[in-house]
């Protein structure tokens, strides 16, 4: 019997007919009618108008029909909540049916119907079914609690369902345990209270269930174990011992989740021998995943990529398994290539190069390019093998395949950057291929090489001249490079020919193009050359910092987070979950969410970016400004803008486009930006410099010790923080007749346990009538005082005078440490685990935050880190969450505010709430500065 026939009715009056059939007394006819309705629903026809008639059919003995009717209800109950209630009776009745399959079906279906009125009726049957004798009903009820929590967390809490779930962790049936774990873990993810903390007691139960439950259940349990923090190394070892056998499971998800748990515990394990054994044990299962379906291979490869960034030795001996098969899908090949680059070493480079060379002759152009680029990246990473890599590249250039040659030239440029003045002998070969170049990037690379080695290429001027003929038709990238190369040529060979060339190029660039970057760069060169050619040489021909290949290398924090998410989408995207999961589910109205869904072009860019991380990843080494240079420039700016530390704001790749033109502008072509030249500093942001210097100069520091009370010694100072160190920025002035030296300082015990750096002022000498400045480092780590105030009792003496005492206030906002940056999970976990007694609240009625973004920057500058925000339903207020750390206490802040309206409520949670009052002082100051 085929059900396909139910799709074929398309005649008019269909609905009316169906209605009639649904009321038929003939059971078979009735059932067929329901099937027809479901078939119509399947192809997307709206059959919601039949709702009352279908609901009528719920009272049936036929299980198949019952399931179809329930399916219909799940789909349409939302549109007809009033009639849906008619089905409640059946649900309640079914949940008491002697047949456990029907009891479970009723509970399962009810949970899927998101109609408030039905939800109310769900509670009693659910309560019963959670304690059902039949494990099948219990395992279904466990999931139903999670469904209910999604609809109404309050009901779940009020009715004590959470306790039921927790009890289920001790259930005799492993599948019930697994589903209870899944439900609890999900509820925990969406709850602010501690719901599901794995204690050593529950751990034992989970481990027992792990051995017996289904493969899917094993994944639920393993995934929740990742969150368990082992008490000590022994605890971790025992977990690992229980989990390791799972590596042999046929289910890839079980294997990856086991790897995840083991890696997490390896951070705690101290026994290096054991760690070595574990690495050895994990390698074969990971390799085995590569013989699974291509999609699973892909997930495995993305994860292996992460794992070897932390534990490279796990797979170093297995590089061969990553060799591409001819028929591998491109997405698998690309990932394999990436891993091969990471695993390449001097030991295996010969083999790897042979492979890359092989790939470079394949059909897929994109993959061929990636292979060529891979050779270049190996050359940059492995100094001793660079020559071998270059030889392979030269061989590839001999093939004369256009795109191979161009790609090879691009990477050779990078190799020249990495090993200056080493391989110029190959330039001749490169020059032979000059006329085949038609891609801007390759052209620009070639021109850069010519400019850089202009003094050694006899006909450099001729070569450049051929390009210059078409200067105005070239793309910007090539034009910029031509401009710079011509300047270099002129500086290296200031003869007549180059002089004419430079004249022409500067004319064209300044007068005949509309591109401001090009024009401005030309002007700068022009002015430099005309005012001081020697300075021009210093700037343009300056030595460049070495580059290294750190593309696709994740920073340690992100890597750590991703390793905790092995197997999940985050590990596939190589992005933290927060980057693509909107956690504030309550805040999002679902309808809107859907409208702006996948078709929005803004999202699309993001999507493709996510979908093919290698595209973005491949860019940095090729881009004009290699990563280290970017870092240099951003650092420079970072220093200027003082504590705001913008480099921390954006990951390096994002900073690249901004910094790029900057480097280019200065004609450092590959943006060397050496510090001695004052120009880049001014160029970076001339105002930043002034901004910074003014307040410092204009406002004298507050007086700490008055000259009249201390025999003419006056001390002014402020507490500041720089580079993770808190210090007193002190100005001493001596109005006495004798020179003061041999200063010594002592602090009384204080709230933060600060002690002065030993001999911190030993070098200070203040001449009579003169002044001097010093920075006195405050060392944390001393025992904190019992009375927590922001006062600091200081005793200072010098060789000439008695001891002076003074009591300045500590500016608490300077004392937050960099360690205050928590990841969200840690924050959430801590927030939930702290009971209410650890909470302090204070109102700041006058405070007014005009913009959350700038406020965030301000807070961040003082190491108070923004975590999340959500709107308060029904008001214009928002709640923001922050994390911070004073030397003695981690403080979690919650600020409720309305942008632009005075009044901020701040609530602080901490394991050490006694520090909250101090933190409030800091918050008050920070709020005040935001208000201005």
């Amino acid at each position, binding site marked *: 019997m085929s059900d396909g026939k139910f799709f074929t009715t398309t005649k008019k009056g269909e609905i009316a007919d169906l209605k009639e059939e649904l009321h038929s007394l003939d059971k078979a006819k009735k059932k067929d009618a329901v099937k027809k309705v479901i078939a119509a629903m399947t192809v997307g026809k709206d059959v919601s108008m039949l709702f009352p008639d279908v609901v009528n059919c719920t009272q049936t003995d*036929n299980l198949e029909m019952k399931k179809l009717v329930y399916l219909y209800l799940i789909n349409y109950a939302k549109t007809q909540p009033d009639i849906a209630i008619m089905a409640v009776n059946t649900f309640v009745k079914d949940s008491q049916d*002697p047949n456990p399959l029907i009891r479970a079906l009723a509970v399962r279906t009810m949970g899927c119907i998101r109609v408030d009125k039905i939800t109310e009726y769900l509670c009693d049957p659910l309560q019963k079914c959670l304690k059902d004798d039949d494990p099948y009903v219990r395992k279904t009820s466990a999931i139903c609690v999670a469904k209910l929590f999604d609809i109404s967390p309050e009901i779940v809490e009020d009715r004590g369902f959470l306790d039921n779930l927790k009890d289920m962790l001790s259930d005799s049936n492993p599948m019930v345990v697994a589903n209870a774990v899944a439900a609890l873990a999900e509820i925990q993810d969406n709850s602010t209270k501690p719901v599901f903390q794995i204690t050593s007691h529950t751990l034992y139960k989970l481990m027992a269930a792990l051995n017996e439950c289904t493969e899917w259940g094993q994944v639920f349990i393993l995934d929740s174990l990742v969150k368990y923090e082992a008490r000590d190394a022994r605890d971790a070892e025992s977990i690992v011992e229980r989990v390791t056998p799972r590596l042999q499971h*046929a289910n890839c998800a079980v294997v990856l989740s086991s790897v995840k748990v083991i890696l997490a515990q390896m951070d705690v394990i101290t026994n290096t021998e054991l760690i070595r054994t574990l690495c050895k044990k994990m390698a074969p299962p990971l390799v085995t995943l590569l013989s699974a379906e291509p999609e699973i291979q892909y997930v495995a490869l993305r994860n292996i990529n992460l794992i070897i960034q932390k534990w490279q030795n796990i797979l170093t001996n297995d590089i061969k*398994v990553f060799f591409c098969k001819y028929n591998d899908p491109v997405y698998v090949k690309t990932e394999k290539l990436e891993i091969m680059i990471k695993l390449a070493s001097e030991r295996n480079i010969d083999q790897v190069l042979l492979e890359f060379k092989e790939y470079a002759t394949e059909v897929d152009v994109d993959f061929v390019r990636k292979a060529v680029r891979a050779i270049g990246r190996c050359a940059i990473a492995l100094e001793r093998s660079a020559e071998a890599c270059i030889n392979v590249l030269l061989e590839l250039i001999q093939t004369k*395949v256009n795109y191979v040659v161009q790609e090879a030239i691009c990477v050779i440029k990078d190799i020249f950057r990495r090993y200056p003045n080493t391989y110029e002998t190959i330039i001749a070969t490169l020059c032979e291929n000059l006329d085949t170049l038609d891609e801007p990037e390759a052209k620009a690379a070639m021109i850069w090489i010519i400019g850089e080695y202009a003094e050694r290429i006899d006909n450099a001027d001729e070569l450049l001249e051929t390009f210059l003929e078409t200067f105005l038709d070239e793309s910007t990238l090539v034009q910029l490079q031509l401009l710079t190369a011509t300047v270099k040529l002129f500086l290296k060979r200031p003869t007549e020919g180059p002089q004419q060339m430079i004249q022409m190029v500067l004319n064209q660039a300044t007068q005949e193009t509309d591109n401001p970057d090009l024009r401005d760069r030309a002007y700068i060169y022009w002015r430099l050359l005309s005012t001081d050619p020697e300075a021009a040489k210093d700037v343009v021909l300056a030595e460049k910092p070495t580059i290294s290949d750190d593309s696709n290398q994740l920073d340690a924090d992100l890597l750590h987070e991703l390793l905790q998410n092995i197997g999940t*989408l985050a590990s596939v995207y190589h992005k933290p979950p927060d980057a693509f999961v909107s956690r504030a589910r309550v805040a999002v109205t679902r309808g809107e969410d859907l409208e702006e*869904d*996948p078709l929005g072009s803004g999202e699309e860019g993001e999507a493709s970016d996510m979908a093919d991380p290698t595209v973005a990843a491949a860019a940095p080494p090729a881009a004009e400004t290699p990563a280290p240079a970017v870092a240099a420039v951003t650092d420079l700016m970072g220093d200027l803008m003082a504590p705001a530390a913008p480099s921390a704001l954006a990951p390096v790749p994002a900073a690249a486009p901004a910094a790029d033109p900057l480097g280019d502008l200065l004609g450092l072509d590959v943006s060397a930006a050496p510090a001695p030249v004052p120009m880049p500093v001014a160029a970076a942001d001339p105002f930043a410099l002034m901004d910074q210097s003014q307040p410092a100069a204009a406002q004298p520091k507050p007086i700490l010790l008055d000259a009249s009370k201390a025999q003419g010694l006056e001390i002014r100072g402020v507490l500041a923080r720089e580079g993770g160190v808190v210090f007193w920025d002190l100005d001493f002035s001596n109005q006495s007749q004798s020179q003061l030296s041999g200063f010594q300082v002592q602090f009384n015990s204080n709230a933060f346990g600060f002690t002065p750096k030993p001999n911190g002022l030993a070098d200070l000498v203040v001449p009579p009538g003169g002044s001097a400045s010093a920075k006195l480092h405050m060392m944390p780590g001393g025992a904190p005082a019992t009375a927590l105030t922001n006062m600091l009792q200081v005793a200072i003496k010098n060789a000439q005078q008695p001891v002076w005492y003074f009591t300045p206030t500590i500016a608490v906002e300077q004392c937050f440490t960099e360690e205050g940056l928590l990841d969200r999970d840690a924050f959430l976990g801590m927030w939930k685990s702290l009971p209410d007694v650890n909470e302090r609240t204070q109102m700041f009625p006058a405070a007014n935050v005009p913009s959350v973004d700038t406020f965030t920057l301000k807070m961040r500058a003082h190491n108070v880190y923004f975590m999340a925000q959500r709107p308060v339903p029904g008001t214009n207020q928002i709640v923001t969450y922050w994390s911070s750390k004073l030397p003695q206490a981690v403080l979690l802040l919650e600020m409720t505010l309305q942008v632009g309206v005075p009044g901020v409520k701040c609530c602080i949670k901490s394991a050490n709430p006694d520090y909250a009052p101090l933190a409030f002082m800091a918050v008050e100051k920070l709020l005040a500065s935001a208000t201005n």
Partner: protein
Amino acid sequence: MAHVAASAIYFLNLRGEIIVHRMYRDDVGRNLADAFRTQILQSKEQTGTPVRYLGSCSFVYTRYNNVYVLAVTKSNANAALAFKFLNELITLFKSYFGEFMEESLRNNFVLIYELLDEIMDFGYPQILTPEILKLYITQQGVKSESADKGAEVVDNKATLQVTGAVGHRREGIYYKKNQVYLDIVENVNLLMSAKGTVLRSDCAGKILMKCFLSGMPDLKLGLNDKLTVEKEGGARNDNKIIELDDVTFHQCVNLGRFSTDKTVSFVPPDGEFELMRYRITEGVHLPFRVLPIIKELGRTRLEVNVKLKSAFEPKYHALGVIVRIPVPKHTVKANIQVRGGGKAKYDAAQNCLVWKIKRCAGKKELHLEAEVELVSTTGEKKAWSRPPINLEFQVPMITASGLRVRFLKVWEKGGYKAIKWIRTLTKSGGDSGGQYEIRCN
């Protein structure tokens, strides 16, 4: 929510139209199939990664025959779990209605809805073992009326069975004749350079079992691999001990016991199943050697010379050997001569010379010589990429790895004697996976 595999499952045809779908959570919209069609299927971008992110939803998909199976989620779902779920789901559907195709999905939509309701709950995979599901979801739908007491007893059992520790086997199975079949099937993967250097070779083996055993039998399997043999202390004189790189087991195998005392012991499901998979990279006996010489003579001619050697013992025979030798697209014709056996012809659809040898004994040497004529093309600048030669074959009775079954013990409280059948097969190519590739440049 890393446990979740999906918020919705879609089955789409190649045009991206919905065949059947099921929503498990309402955090994703219903129009996602459209998004999938316009943004992924019709997109020009050919990266084709099987995990895509579009407008706050993640799409995890695979294709089987003419059907896309798509899981959509908004959370940080477990991608490995999602793919495994999709693959198992395809296997399950195949076991219910044979083929997994657009047509068969449409014809069984009622059953599919029923299965979808059972195998996943709120995005959490539940039970996907065909044998178990067939206990209470039958092809014709459950016939039981709740008044029917007899049927109810079955149902009651089903639920206990489904969730039980030995979820894969029901009680009270009885066979007149107790039999076990055990097949060792090995897929050889090879990547060899034109000069005959082995770049990579490994062997992916499976042990497939078919059990027709009564009651609740306990089985114990002994292999000649290093770990188990050493553990047992004996048989050191046995010179054919091999080392398995990695082993994965069916859900029924007690992994705890394997890790402590290295025995493979299990209560098998009834009927057919895959007991274990293993992988070996060291000491793989390659059944065939191929030595190709391919010369391009000018732009219009190609000289192909391929030598095929069978390296196994002469008493065995390889079956269905197919050698595919790629030639350029613009081939006109080929004059082929074979010595030693088989038939060869030029297959324009595959751009290959296809050499088929029905039966080939061990320690033989076969030759193929061909002159290939090409159309002279002026436009084609790029050199011919010389794809690798590909080999397909089956050799019964041998294992490339040298793996043998030392013993297979069946123990049941009924105390019957089971008849055991053991076969071995080494193969490569075909749809079973395994690639035997010899590069030509």
